[in-house]
């Protein structure tokens, strides 16, 4: 049965349709791996029993000829998506005991497509982090290890549980959210595919908000085709999210033609950032070569404001977070720590409920929005953000997609994390600019470091042109033929 967990979604759907196996069998196989993977701490809440029941119902639907687009496929849901009747924590102590009375639009759409949720996946607290180290529910451990080493590595973040359990083959796909790189960076660290759609492509309704002008949901899978299939069921206009785009959702899997002849691939000079691993620079050059060989035309482009993207992000994201997280006040849901006055109760609750990284970001956000500093920080950042977005607009006048590294290094050790927050922020140097511009980005695993860890490349596209991004991703995937498997599950 172990081979069932090696299938892609596309293969599993064929097997289910041909009655080679049932969703109950497929789900049981993934539950068994997820149970074996418990030391990775990828789940915050397991819903295995409910999954078994849902798989039975899926098999019954299929027998009646009523199967949905992803019927019977075992998935995991990042614990930032509210799920009706299932505890939702956002990786924080402050949401203790919160059981949403409603379902987020995206997780609801996946359920309606027939997916089977195995549970809620671990993440950095309120999605703030790049290592999954800020979760109240403990760090996630990557299923990968360096060759000949037993050091535990981070899965990346914030969608660390999603990346780890997809790579470990405990689910076929997971949802992630990406504010500054939280889908793409963990996908790169864990050797899987991560797709951040255009801002507005997927509804944000029912997703615990971090930075509302940046947050976007997307799929994390083991193939580009699977990412396209997942996005088909996740995307679409939602009247409950006024920033979701009211435009048609194509069949993204049809974009995988394998043909990039004549396509113009931009290579931004400014992404040759100091501190990037030489292996990643070499892999980037290899990626350029692969696409050239496939018939694409390579063009040099300039994104002159790239180096200001991180500083811009670390004003805008905390500012929006400080507003969004004001709702956690001990009154309506979650944790309450008593106080003699209402204000004292608020302050005690928020001191006990938020972790250090979240507190610091709220304080920075509050400061940059406070009287006298708004113009110098927040307004300035929004102006630089406009320049960053304009850089991309101009680049896309001469190319169709951009090819860049996803992260500057391979995964680092759980205990190798630097106490310097700025060093941690640099993980997102290649992902943050496109987040600020709202553009779609796809992380594809394309190679291994000399010590056996996955490395990846990123494809960025024009707004709402996920199809071209996916098309190029498919070609890159085929050329790289990434078949390395994580250490976990290799019978060690």
């Amino acid at each position: 049965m172990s081979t069932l967990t090696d299938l892609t979604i596309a293969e599993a759907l064929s097997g289910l349709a041909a009655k080679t196996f049932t969703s109950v069998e497929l789900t049981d196989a993934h539950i068994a791996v997820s149970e074996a993977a418990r030391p990775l701490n990828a789940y915050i809440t397991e819903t295995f029993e409910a999954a078994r029941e849902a798989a039975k119902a899926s098999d019954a639907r299929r027998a009646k000829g009523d199967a949905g687009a992803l019927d019977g496929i075992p998935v995991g849901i990042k614990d930032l998506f509210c799920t009706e009747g299932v505890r939702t924590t956002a990786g924080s102590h402050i949401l203790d005991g919160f059981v949403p009375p409603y379902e987020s639009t995206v997780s609801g759409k996946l359920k309606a497509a027939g997916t089977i949720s195995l549970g809620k996946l671990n993440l950095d607290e309120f999605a703030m982090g790049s290592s999954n180290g800020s979760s109240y529910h403990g760090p996630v451990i990557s299923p990968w290890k360096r060759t000949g080493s037993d050091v535990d590595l981070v899965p990346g973040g914030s969608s660390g549980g999603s990346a780890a359990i997809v790579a470990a083959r405990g689910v076929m796909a997971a949802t992630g959210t990406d504010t500054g790189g939280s889908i793409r960076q963990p996908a790169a660290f864990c050797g899987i595919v991560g797709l951040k759609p255009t801002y507005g492509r997927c509804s944000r309704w029912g997703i615990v908000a971090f930075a509302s002008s940046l947050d976007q949901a997307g799929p994390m899978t083991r193939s580009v085709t699977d990412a396209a299939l997942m996005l088909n069921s996740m995307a679409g206009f939602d009247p409950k999210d006024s920033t979701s785009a009211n435009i048609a959702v194509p069949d993204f899997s049809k974009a995988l033609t394998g043909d990039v002849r004549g396509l113009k691939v931009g290579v931004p000079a400014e992404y040759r950032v100091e501190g990037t691993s030489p292996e990643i620079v070499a892999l980037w050059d290899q990626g350029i070569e692969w696409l050239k060989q496939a018939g694409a035309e390579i063009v040099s482009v300039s994104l002159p404001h790239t180096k200001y993207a991180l500083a811009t992000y670390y004003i805008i994201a905390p500012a929006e977070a400080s507003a969004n997280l004001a709702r956690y006040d001990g009154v309506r849901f979650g944790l309450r720590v008593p106080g003699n006055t209402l204000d004292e109760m608020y302050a005690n609750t928020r001191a006990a409920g938020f972790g250090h990284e979240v507190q610091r970001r709220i304080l920075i956000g509050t400061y940059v929005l406070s009287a006298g500093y708004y113009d110098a920080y927040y307004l300035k950042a929004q102006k630089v953000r406009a320049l960053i977005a304009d850089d991309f607009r101009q680049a896309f006048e001469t190319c169709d997609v951009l090819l860049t590294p996803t992260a500057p290094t391979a995964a680092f050790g759980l205990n190798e994390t630097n106490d310097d927050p700025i060093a941690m922020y640099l993980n997102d140097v290649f992902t943050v600019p496109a987040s600020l511009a709202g553009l779609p980005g796809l992380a594809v695993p394309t190679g291994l470091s000399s010590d056996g860890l996955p490395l990846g490349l990123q494809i960025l596209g024009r707004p709402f042109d996920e199809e071209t991004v996916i098309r190029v991703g498919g070609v890159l995937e085929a050329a790289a033929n990434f078949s390395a498997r994580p250490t976990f599950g290799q019978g060690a």
Partner: protein
Amino acid sequence: MALDQDTVRRVATLARIKIEEKDLAPMATEISAILGWIEQLSDVNTDGVAPLARVVNMTLPMRDDVVTEPDQHEKILKNAPQSAEGRFFTVPKVVE
């Protein structure tokens, strides 16, 4: 821009987060380091640049102003740490 402890105390009050006196200094150091790093934005000439209002060009839709989910008291109060009579959230006394 270096933040002193008084500023951190004031911002923490605005943000309604209780910070112990002993934690004010380290927090001030951390935030100052981040704000110092952010200072690099002053190198960017933004004269005449309009702040970005939305990343994707679209007009926010209008909807009819109608009640769509009437009487959800039970669902809304279900997650409250404290509530009363099935109708109200309760908080510490705010009027003397």
